[in-house]
């Protein structure tokens, strides 16, 4: 019995040890999964990426051998990845390799990359720009190919997304190389769209830095308006900002895009907005010389949203004696006539003769002619009484008709007894 008891005790002890080993093993797994003590390789990589601005101070001399070896590894990763854009492990591996390289090594690698390595070139470029922006962006432009020139703008945008204050401060520095100073507007334009939601004040203050205003910002306000048309709070902030810039065109462009993108299900709010807009336009807030364009843009947008009757009525009250119609309204009226020809004809019939009616009719002649509706265009032409406007519309119709069907156009001219 004592022998049996000893055996039993030993077996129990052994079992206890095995259980203990199993528990220890599981506890080890749990500790690792919980991230205790151990940083996984990717987290280490990411930490290095985050500290890249500090790394820009690194003075390690690049060697061609190191760059070549890194490039070989990078190319192997790219070649082995079926879809690099969605291959997150491969991308993390690339980030990890790039984070260890100096600016000189990154420069040497970028120089070797071709337009087939889109994602890799952007990653190399981004790592390089964060370390030495002027050298990196100048070198990208110096490659003098469409692809690399575009890449410089895209990579600047990514740098600005990672580190907006550093990128925008660099853009404002006074010692930019001339080829980069020329690109300032494009760089800034690329950096700003996504910044608005992250830092409204920074993004809008950057907007005022475009030297040639709307021409350089290339529709940034319109882009924001279309993105945030369904967000009342952002809408309100954008409108407040656009009114405050001192450039009436900013507000006009914002309105145009905002009203076109306003969600249909929120039409009550849009109606309220339009009323507020009308009151604003009726006030003295917009300088006299800027009013026609600002007003025409708002009316054009209202027509687009099918508030045509009240919008045109308001327009004619103010501008019936003007023979000019700003482009945004001409375009909207042309589209309206195409979409609702009967409604439009009735409206024109009901308008008393005026220089503005003639001017709008001329826009409609052009629109009909562009769609090959030459008889309708001719009908509208007959309603124009101002000889100068009529002659201009006649020339547009004749040009379009002659392009499409020279014989029919000639017969029409003879029939009307016109000589051009």
């Amino acid at each position, binding site marked *: 019995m004592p022998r049996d008891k000893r055996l039993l005790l030993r077996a129990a002890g052994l079992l206890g*040890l095995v259980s*203990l080993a199993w*528990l220890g093993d599981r506890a080890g*797994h*749990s*500790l690792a999964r919980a991230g205790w003590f151990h940083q996984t390789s990717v987290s280490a990589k990411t930490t290095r990426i985050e500290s890249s601005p500090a790394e820009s101070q690194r003075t390690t001399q690049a060697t061609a051998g190191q760059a070549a070896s890194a490039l070989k590894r990078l190319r192997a990763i790219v070649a082995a990845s079926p879809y690099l854009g*969605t291959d997150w*492990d491969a991308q993390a591996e690339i980030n990890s390799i790039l984070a260890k390289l100096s600016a000189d090594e990154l420069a040497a690698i970028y120089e070797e990359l071709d337009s087939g390595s889109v994602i890799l070139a952007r990653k190399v470029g981004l790592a390089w720009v964060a370390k030495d922006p002027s050298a990196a962006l100048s070198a990208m432009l110096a490659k003098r190919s469409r692809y690399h020139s575009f890449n410089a703008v895209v990579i600047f945008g990514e740098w600005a997304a990672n580190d907006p204050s550093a990128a925008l401060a660099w853009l404002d520095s006074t010692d930019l190389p001339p080829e980069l100073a020329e690109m300032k507007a494009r760089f800034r334009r690329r950096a700003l*769209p996504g910044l608005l939601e992250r830092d409204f004040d920074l993004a809008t203050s950057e907007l005022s830095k475009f030297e040639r205003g709307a021409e350089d910002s290339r529709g940034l306000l319109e882009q924001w308006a279309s993105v945030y048309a369904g967000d009342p709070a952002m809408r309100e902030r954008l409108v407040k900002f656009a009114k405050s810039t001192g450039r009436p065109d900013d507000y006009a462009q914002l309105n145009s895009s905002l009203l076109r993108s306003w969600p249909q299900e929120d039409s009550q709010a849009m109606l309220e907005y339009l009323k507020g807009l009308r009151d604003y336009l009726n006030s003295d807030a917009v300088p006299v010389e800027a009013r026609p364009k600002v007003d025409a843009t708002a009316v054009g947008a209202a027509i687009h949203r099918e508030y045509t009757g009240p919008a045109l009525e308001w327009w004619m009250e103010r501008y019936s004696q003007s023979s000019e119609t700003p482009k945004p309204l001409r375009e909207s009226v*042309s589209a309206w006539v195409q979409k609702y020809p009967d409604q439009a004809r009735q409206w024109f019939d009901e308008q008393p003769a005026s220089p503005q009616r003639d001017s709008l009719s001329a826009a409609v002649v052009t629109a009909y002619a562009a769609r090959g509706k030459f008889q309708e265009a001719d009908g509208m032409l007959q309603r124009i009484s101002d000889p100068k406007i009529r002659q201009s519309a006649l020339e547009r119709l004749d040009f379009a008709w002659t392009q499409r069907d020279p014989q029919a156009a000639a017969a029409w001219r003879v029939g009307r007894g016109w000589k051009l």
Partner: protein
Amino acid sequence: MIVPNALMTGWKSKLALVAGTLGVASWLGYRAECRNLDAAQQPDSSTRSTARPVLATRTRAGSIDRLNALRRVAGRWSLAPREEAQCWEIIRGFSVDEVKAYLAEIPENLNFQANLVLAGMLFYRWGQLDPEAAMKEALKPPYAEAQYYQSVVAAWMGRDLEGVMRWAKANGSEPIKRDVGNAAGRLLAFQDPETALARATAEFPSAMDGVLFTLALQMSDSEESRRKFFALLASREDLKERKRCLVSLASAPAYTGRHVPVEMVAELEASGAPPDQVDFFRNELERQAIFQNPQEALERMSLPGSDTPRDRQLSAYANWLKYEPEEATAWAANHGKVDFVAETVKARATQRIAGGWQPGGEERNGWDRSTLDQFNAWRRHEPTTAETWLQTLPSEIRDHFNASSHDATR
């Protein structure tokens, strides 16, 4: 005294044995899991410890909070590259349950860029853990439209290329077979160029194009390898496939950065290829050259003795103009090609006027701006001809051109 010492020794050694076993086992378990995590391998979910759910719940909540914070910062726009890396750092440690939980957490606005990327990462992670289940979910609404199956394939193919090919062959729709086939073909050729064609034929014929595309790039760099490629081409019966291969070969410079000599056309001819294929290849090389480096291509085409028809030169110029209007216009003006500028202005203006152009104010449309700039360049070099042409336009358009000319000289 001897007995208590022996007892003490026995007690100490047992304690050391217990502590040692616990320590060694914990260390081994810890290292094994670290390796799993580093390789983003599937953790063994069937043997979770009793402590795991508690830890997992805590870490899951923390992870989801961090992901949500990053997602909200980006709002309607893309995550910054750094934020993407941070998101992947979190998601790469997710279990299948965590992947599903966070997919459910992402709001319905899948059209927000950040949400799209995060969902892609989740499907990629799911593809690492349980690719078939991930694929099934990725092909259902609302995910099917955004083609998340590519994320699953990206994860799956790296580990089990044969498995993906088997799945796509048996279950994939035609577009998916083509898409997966291209990616699989590239990998087959990368892994072993010698056996890639045979493997594609036997295992997944949809991979053939991907294999041939990759072989064309790989074999474009020397006369010897190109000769082999042309021989391989001659052995393919499908004429459309041969043409696709020639397109791939012609596009090699764009993908590899290597200069591909125009002598390739003669090499193809010498390989016995029929004349229509040789012509097709010559045109394709030229088309690629125009796209890749229009200036160089134009200069080559317009050399004395070049037999490139003028309309093709003009089309190369028009292509360049689309992307770099200032450079293209300046080049034409400085290389005695003002007629290119003039013809482009005429063609564009006629098209725009006939299309109902409502000119006025500052042109925001890049095409119209570029047309006005070219007109001004033309007028600087050939004032009389440009003016005569301008007089043929409707007065409204004429005034617009004149106003832009005035702006340009301010």
